[in-house]
């Protein structure tokens, strides 16, 4: 059945059986997700659940090969799983269109899986899944790609480095379409809108939607109608190009009437600051009094509203004129290039105007250039390599061969030719605030009846009877940065969990307060309680309160050193040389969660010196540096 024969040949019967019985959760059904779901289903995995919040967008079709145009606006998870099911009629595969951060996906829900695979594109969700997997004691395979770079690693609480053992850059690379089109909240959202939507639609290659009627059906009629309306409106704008009113027409659509339409959806602005419409005539007269010269705008400071307006007006005319003079009759197109001043300034100006509309911080042209140039598209080849590696790691994890798992990087560097690098899984950072915690489950039958005081009393009771819980008398209880309880703060004791918003799925942290340096005392790391309902089998006779898991938590034993690969004895050791160190740089302006590997041949150098060497080869910025033994390399040797 399926590829079981091959797996049996290579890994033995037991591993093959585990592959076919393991229950997998795939979070994300986008670029990596499509490849991953295909690879998993073609590699003998039989039980797969996929969760993705997004719906399919036009721009996904070029690499997310399980999707087609008629699927636009349908849930990614559903369409991807349907394709996998169509191909493997016997497979037990399910889809959910949902945000993985929803409380429904609590510790109990995660616990039903043998392995979770992250194929996500945003840091926030990746962090969340990392934490829940730690709490649910489920291994996680983490992945990320950006352009030609990619990374895969395996996370198992207490045994390996977790997603947050080292700081990650905060910037995201891809965004939900509604954030970009309707509810931007950060400068990057406005830049993406200006570059990938407005600029592309006005000056990019023209798109003809006449064929879209072909696949119309009742189900997607509404979506298609909206899409068509948008396209028509933009086509009209493009027609105005060449007319002196071009800038006005564009401006009034995107900064006045579109904003008015958004404002009319009152629900959207209940919890958000509503946008402000801009007025063309008002700004035009204000701009007359300004000595701002749109031909040489200042690139380093943020623009004022009138400057942004003047620059918009100027560059819109310039770009329209360029298209006009390019060709007669048929309109040409301009693709965004950060080194094309008109294009960059247009994007900077419109992003700036949009930032004013939504009350978002302004960025300078310089920063816009960096951000716009940094929007690295995902590409099919890297996704294929990364997903392929994830599946190998998945086979190792479910067949309990953790020591054979690796962290792998797909890299591209013109100076060195090697595309896939790997290293043994690293040990957890001993002071990691996420994985160096004891994760226990707090089962509460009725959250409206149980008070925080009940929980604190229960913890005190447990601290007396259960030595290995290591909780003393003096404890604090917090949820994130919110203090719920400590010795001097008992206001919440009478409030029910429900009143405090401590729903199922939330996590509270309990820490000892009677020690100065908690981390230094063995076993005294804070305890994180995941709030859950009663166990299903206990449902008939629910306990009021129960904490489970503490007796199961292993000591934080270090991961045993990778055993020499029995099948392949000429393993990693042979590549190691003591004076060879790879410096892993988490570039702060780099791609999400993606560590870049830079190799510096060094003898016992300090981090400072390593940073200097890296800066010599062009790696800049605040970088955290880790050292790893790595394959000897005769190239790219750097000497002072």
């Amino acid at each position, binding site marked *: 059945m399926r590829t079981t024969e091959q797996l049996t040949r290579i890994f033995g019967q037991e591993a093959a059986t585990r592959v076919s019985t393991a229950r997998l959760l795939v979070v994300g059904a986008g670029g990596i997700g499509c490849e991953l779901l295909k690879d998993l289903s073609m590699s003998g995995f039989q039980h797969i659940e996929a969760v993705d919040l997004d719906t399919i967008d036009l721009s996904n079709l070029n690499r997310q090969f399980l999707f087609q145009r008629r699927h636009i606006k349908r849930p990614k998870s559903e369409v991807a799983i349907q394709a996998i099911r169509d*191909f493997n009629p016997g497979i037990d595969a399910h889809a959910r269109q949902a945000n993985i951060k929803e409380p429904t996906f609590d510790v109990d829900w995660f616990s039903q899986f043998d392995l979770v695979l992250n194929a996500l594109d945003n840091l926030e969700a990746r962090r969340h899944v990392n934490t829940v997997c730690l709490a649910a004691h489920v291994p996680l395979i983490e992945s990320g790609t950006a352009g*030609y770079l990619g990374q895969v690693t395996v996370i198992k609480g207490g045994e390996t480095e977790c997603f947050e053992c080292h700081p990650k850059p905060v910037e995201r690379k891809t965004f939900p379409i509604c954030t970009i089109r309707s509810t931007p909240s950060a400068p990057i959202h406005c830049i993406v809108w200006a570059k990938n939507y407005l600029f592309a639609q006005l000056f990019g290659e023209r798109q003809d939607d006449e*064929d879209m009627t072909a696949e119309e059906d009742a189900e997607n009629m509404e979506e298609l109608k909206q899409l068509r309306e948008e396209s028509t409106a933009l086509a009209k704008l493009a027609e105005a190009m060449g007319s002196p009113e071009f800038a006005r027409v564009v401006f009034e659509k995107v900064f006045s009437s579109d904003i008015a339409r958004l404002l009319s959806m009152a629900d959207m602005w209940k919890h958000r600051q509503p946008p402000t419409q801009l007025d063309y005539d008002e700004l035009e007269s204000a701009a007359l009094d300004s000595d701002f010269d749109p031909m040489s705008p200042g690139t*380093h400071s943020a623009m004022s509203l009138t400057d942004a307006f003047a620059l918009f007006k100027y560059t819109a005319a310039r770009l329209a004129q360029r298209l006009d003079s390019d060709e007669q009759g048929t309109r040409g197109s301009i693709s965004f290039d950060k080194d094309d001043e008109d294009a960059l300034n247009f994007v900077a100006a419109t992003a700036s105007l949009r930032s004013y509309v939504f009350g978002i911080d302004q960025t300078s042209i310089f920063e816009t250039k960096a951000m716009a140039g940094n929007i690295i598209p995902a590409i099919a*080849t890297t996704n*294929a*390599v990364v997903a392929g590696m994830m*599946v190998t790691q998945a086979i190792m994890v479910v067949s309990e061969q953790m020591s054979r798992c690796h962290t792998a990087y797909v890299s591209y560097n013109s100076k060195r030719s090697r*595309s896939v690098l790997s290293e043994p899984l690293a040990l957890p950072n001993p002071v990691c605030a996420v994985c160096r915690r004891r994760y226990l489950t707090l089962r509460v039958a009725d959250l409206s009846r149980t008070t925080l005081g009940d929980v604190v009393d229960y913890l005190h009771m447990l601290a007396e009877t259960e030595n290995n819980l290591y909780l003393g008398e003096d404890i604090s209880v917090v949820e994130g940065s919110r203090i719920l309880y400590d010795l001097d703060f008992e206001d919440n004791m009478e409030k029910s969990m429900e009143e405090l918003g401590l729903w199922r799925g939330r996590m509270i942290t309990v820490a000892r307060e009677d020690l100065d340096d908690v981390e230094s005392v063995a076993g005294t790391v804070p305890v994180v309680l995941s709030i859950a309902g009663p166990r299903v089998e206990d449902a008939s006779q629910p306990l009021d309160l129960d904490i489970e898991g503490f007796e199961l938590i292993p000591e934080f034993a270090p991961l045993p050193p990778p055993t020499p690969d029995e*099948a392949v004895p000429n393993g990693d050791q042979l590549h190691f040389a003591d004076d060879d160190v790879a410096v892993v740089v988490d570039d702060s302006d780099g791609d999400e969660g993606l560590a870049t590997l830079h190799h510096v041949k060094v003898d016992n150098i300090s981090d400072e010196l390593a940073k200097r060497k890296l800066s010599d080869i062009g790696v800049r910025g605040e970088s955290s540096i880790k050292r790893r033994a790595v394959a000897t390399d005769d190239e790219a040797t750097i000497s002072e």
Partner: protein
Amino acid sequence: MLLRETLQKRGVDGAAQRRAAHSTRGNVVFGDVLTESGQTALEGARVCVFGSTALAAETLKNLVLPGIGEFVVVDDGVVGEQDTLTNFFVQTDDQGKMRAECIVQGLCELNPDVRGSAVTRSPAELLASSDPADIQLVASATLVLACGQPESVICALSRRCWQAHVPLVAADYAGFYARVRTSIPEHAVVESHADTPSDLRLLTPFPALRNYIDEIDLDVLDSTDLAHVPYPLIVAKALKALSLDGDAAAPTIQQKRELRDLIGTMAPVPGEENFVQAVDAVTQHCKPYSTPDAVDEILNDPAAVAPLTDDTKVDHFWLLVSALRAYMLSDYSLGMLPLNGSIPDMKADTKGYIALQRIYKQKAAEDAAQFATHVARELTDAGLPADFISSDEVAVFCRNASNLRLLRFTSLHDEIEGDSLCATAENLVVADVASHYALFRASARFEAVHGRYPGVSASPNDAEMLDDELVASDTVKLIGIANSLLAEWGLESTTVDENLAMEFARSGHCELHNISSMTGGIVSQEAIKLITHQYVPENSLCIVDGVKAKSYVAKI
């Protein structure tokens, strides 16, 4: 609903998708990774693929999605049960059909903009044919891929590609291992996207820069203005103060230390950001000009030094290199490559930054104009029309003058049938892939002798059954062949890793979908680099170890 049907439905809206692909492809897929010329090259490419198993299909998938122009799959294989299990583009009910046709149909439906066709003939037979159409099939391709082909086919293909200067990428698999190798006589890259450090020429400023530096007097600036002076100016002033500028001699370590100290004292307040940047810049920017080694080699390559031959005359790259050489020898250049005009990000006020940028841009424009006159002269001398190379291409070349790369490969047919390995086999040992590589070659030789791969039962009925005795005896044979191959290459002291040999035999040369998907990602990435002449392709053997999630490279 089977995938085929899914894909057919995709075909219904082909035209719409084509437009969607068109508008999204250029701008979104590779728009920020490849420049426009690369995208155009991709759309005009014709790729010829020998083989039609999962590795071929997965590689093609990654080429069809971004939109190569056309592909042809050559294979006479018939879909068997194994194919339906490992090849995503083959269905259970395709059994008995021509596999090449099945994958072409599935792949075409991914992107109706791409033309695909199948030639259902045996690769060996097609390569033996002297029919001009068969010869052209390979010779006129932009790129040829050989996926899981026997050595005899690879050698025949390599000879033909080598002669026609068509890049060939050969890839095959054995269980969790795969190997990839590119072969083409020579491959030039202009847009290498290399991170060459910016060239500020602070030690030897050109006249306009010299004047600008002299015009500015840091002593009259107040502390606010001082905090916004671009760091190159600070470094230049410090160099001048220590009389280190205009001198071709490199400052000594001692002098660099003095420079850093001096810059430190010049700061209005200690730790002012632009002065910190200036201190940091000393190492990189206070050294004499030198042409990057890779470019130097190209400029001194026999093909650049010797008068243009008929071959090089039609080759844009060599014509441009020849012009660059003339430029470098001219009095104007002072032996320095044309400036590309970009300056790095730095702390500065807008006015100062723009003034500095303008000076470098101006110089870059002058250099480019000078270079263009050399190109024009080369073209005239070669008897070619002035527009033989477009001004855009000249400009791109000029801008990338310090990023040029030239790769020369050994041929696959020399590697397999000739003795080129004797000179390079040591690299296999250094890269620790001697065993992997020897076992791939030994498996091929085993197959040539026994008519089956190691670990595969000769009797078709139990082909899928794992027979421990068979594996054990095949392992012994495989080790014997591999060790004799190693000795042939002059690696007498290296013996093959016996456990790895057993893994090869156990795998029965099977194809695993995820390994082929991963390898297909690597092969298609190399293919895109070769087709677009952007980024630097691997000039080496690449062994993929799926178990370790690692690829090894060894130059052979």
